[in-house]
C-alpha cells in the first residue's frame, strides 16, 4: 500500500508530494486543482508496461477522438507542455518505492523504434535514412526505478506508417528485466460499462468466491437484486443479468446510473486486488442517502481484496458520508487531502478522520 506519492512536472503539477496516504484516501478541492490528474499520475506509475500509458489519460476524461500527433499525445502529459523537463513519479509503499521518469530522448544516443508488419517492436537508432520517413521524430525515454535505483529503460514514442496509421510504442531495452508494479484500476467520472468485460470480471469474482461483495454493493442501491448471472447469447454475447424478482432476468445495465456506477466500482475492486483502485468523482450518480453505506462497503471490500482506494469528490455530503460510514476501527486507515492553489503552486492539506470529523461537526468547509 502506498503511503507517499510524489509528482514532478506532470500536467498541472510542477511538484507535489502527498504523504500519509491511507488504505482509503479521499481527495477534495476546487475545480482544476488536479484531483483527477493525481489519479492519472498514480495510474501511469502502475501501468508502466502498456504503450497506451501515454494515452490512457485522454480516455479517462472521455476524449475518444483527437488529432494524433506527437504534440497531442505526449506534450499534454508534461507540465506547461514543456517536454524538456522530465516527468518524475514515485510511489513509496510498505514493500519499497517504485517510480518512473519520462524524458524526451537526448540528442546523443537518441533512440526510437519502428513497428514491423507483424506488429513486433524493434529498437532502431534514429538517423537512418531508410527509417526516417516512418518515424515521428519525437521520442521519449521511460526510466524505471526501484527504491531509487534505475532498473530499466524503455524507448517510447509514436510512429506513423505510410498508410497514415499512427502507433504508440513502448520498447524495453532490457527485456529480461520487465518492471513489475502492483495492479491498478481506474474508474473515471465518465467510465461506461463494457458488458463483455464486466462479465469477465464478474466471472473472476465468482472463481475467487468473492462475488457476494459485488452483490452487497449493488444491493445498497437496489435492495431488490436477488442474484447476478452471466448469460451469453448468440446475439449480444456475454452480459451480466440481474434477477430482481420479475419473470425474466434483466440486463444489469438497465438498472440505472447509480447501480451501474457502483457495479463499475465493485468490479474494478476485484481487478485492483493487492493494488490500488482509483475512482474519480466517486459519488457521481449516487444519491447522498446511500453514500455512508457505500463507504462502509468500500471499507470492507478494501480488506477483502487487500487493496487501496484513492478517490476524488467535490461533494461535502460525500466527505461527511465517509466519516459517517467508515467503521470507527478503520478511521486510522482513512485520510482526506484537500488540494489548494497558492500563487502558482498546488499545495495539500491532510485531514485525519478525527480532523475531518471535528471540522464537519462544526459545519466548516473542508473542500
Amino acid at each position, binding site marked *: 500500500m502506498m503511503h507517499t506519492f510524489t509528482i514532478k512536472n506532470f500536467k498541472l503539477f510542477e511538484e507535489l508530494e502527498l504523504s500519509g496516504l491511507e488504505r482509503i484516501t479521499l481527495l477534495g478541492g476546487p475545480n482544476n486543482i488536479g484531483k483527477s490528474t493525481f489519479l492519472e499520475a498514480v495510474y501511469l506509475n502502475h501501468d508502466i508496461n502498456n504503450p497506451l500509458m501515454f494515452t490512457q489519460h485522454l480516455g479517462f476524461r472521455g476524449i475518444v477522438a483527437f488529432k494524433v500527433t506527437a504534440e497531442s499525445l505526449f506534450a499534454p502529459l508534461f507540465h506547461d507542455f514543456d517536454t524538456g523537463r522530465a516527468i518524475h513519479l514515485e510511489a513509496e509503499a510498505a514493500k519499497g518505492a517504485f517510480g518512473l521518469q519520462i524524458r524526451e530522448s537526448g540528442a546523443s544516443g537518441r533512440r526510437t523504434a519502428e513497428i514491423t508488419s507483424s506488429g513486433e517492436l524493434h529498437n532502431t537508432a534514429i538517423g537512418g535514412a531508410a527509417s526516417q520517413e516512418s518515424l515521428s521524430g519525437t521520442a521519449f525515454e521511460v526510466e524505471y526505478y526501484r527504491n531509487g535505483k534505475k532498473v530499466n529503460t524503455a524507448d517510447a514514442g509514436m510512429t506513423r506508417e505510410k498508410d497514415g496509421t499512427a502507433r504508440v510504442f513502448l520498447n524495453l531495452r532490457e527485456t529480461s528485466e520487465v518492471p513489475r508494479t502492483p495492479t491498478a484500476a481506474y474508474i473515471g467520472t465518465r467510465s461506461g460499462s463494457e458488458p463483455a468485460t464486466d462479465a469477465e470480471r464478474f466471472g473472476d469474482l465468482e472463481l475467487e468466491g468473492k462475488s457476494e461483495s459485488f452483490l452487497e454493493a449493488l444491493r445498497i442501491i437496489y435492495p431488490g437484486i436477488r442474484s447476478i448471472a452471466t448469460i451469453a447469447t448468440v446475439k449480444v454475447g456475454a452480459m451480466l443479468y440481474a434477477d430482481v424478482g420479475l419473470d425474466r432476468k434483466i440486463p444489469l445495465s438497465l438498472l440505472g446510473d447509480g447501480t451501474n456506477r457502483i457495479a463499475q466500482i465493485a468490479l474494478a475492486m476485484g481487478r485492483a486486488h493487492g493494488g490500488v483502485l482509483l475512482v474519480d468523482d466517486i459519488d457521481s450518480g449516487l444519491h447522498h442517502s446511500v453514500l455512508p453505506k457505500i463507504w462502509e462497503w468500500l471499507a470492507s471490500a478494501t480488506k477483502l481484496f487487500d487493496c487501496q482506494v484513492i478517490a476524488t469528490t467535490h461533494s461535502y455530503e460525500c466527505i461527511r458520508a465517509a466519516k459517517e460510514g467508515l467503521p470507527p476501527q478503520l478511521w486510522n486507515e482513512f485520510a482526506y487531502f*484537500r488540494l489548494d492553489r497558492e500563487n502558482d503552486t498546488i499545495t495539500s492539506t491532510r485531514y485525519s478522520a478525527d*480532523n475531518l470529523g*471535528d*471540522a464537519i461537526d462544526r*459545519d*466548516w*468547509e473542508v*473542500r
Partner: protein
Amino acid sequence: MSETIRIEEPHLLLVEGTNDQHFLEALIRKLSVDPVQVVRVFGKNNYSGILQTLVMAPNFKSTVRRLGVIRDNDNDPDAAFKSIKSALEKNGLPCPKHPEAFTAGKPPIVGVFLIPGRGKEGCLEDLCLSTRRDHPTMACVEKFMVCVGDRMNTEAPDAPADDKAYGYPKNETKARAHAFLASMPESDKTVGIAAEEGYWKMDHPVLKDLSKFLRTLTTR
C-alpha cells in the same frame, strides 16, 4: 444540510458563544471598522479544536491577515491566558506576550483579549452591566438579588435537591444581567441581542480597551 462555514474575511475573531458573537458584532458596527468574521467556539474548552479546523480550512493562509481571540477571564485570568496561549501554539500560531496585545511579524497577526479586560476576573455580562451602572433600574436589580438570596435562605432551606427551581443563581453576574434585561421595553432579549437593541451602552468608556483591540484587529 446546513450551509458550511467558510473563511470570508481577512479579519477573524474567535469568541466563546452566541452572546459574545452578537455583542461583538454590535460593537464592531458601532465602531464603523472594516468587516470582521466572528466565529463561535461554543465553549471555553474548544479553542484548540476550532483553531485546528480554522488553520486547515480552505483559504486560511491566503485570506486571514489578523486573528483575534476573545474569551472570558472567569475567576482566573492567568489560567485563561495560558489556555489560549496553549491552543494557539498547539496549532502553530503565534501568541502575544500578554492579553490585549498583538503579535508582530508575518500574518496571521494574532491578538488576545480576555473579558472584562485589564486582568480582572469576570465575564461578558460584567462588561455589559458596567455600561449601565447608572441606569435607574440597576437599583431594582440589586434589590432583586438580595431578595432572592434572603428568600432562598429563609423560606427554602430544606428544598428538595432534585427540584432545580430551588437554588441560588450559580453566576450572580449573569443573573443580574438577565434581571436588568427583564426591565427593558422588550424583555425577552438575550445578553448578545440586547447589545444590538441598544440596551447596553456601546459607547461607554468601559468598552474603550475592547474597542481599541477591535480597531487594531481590523487594521489593514
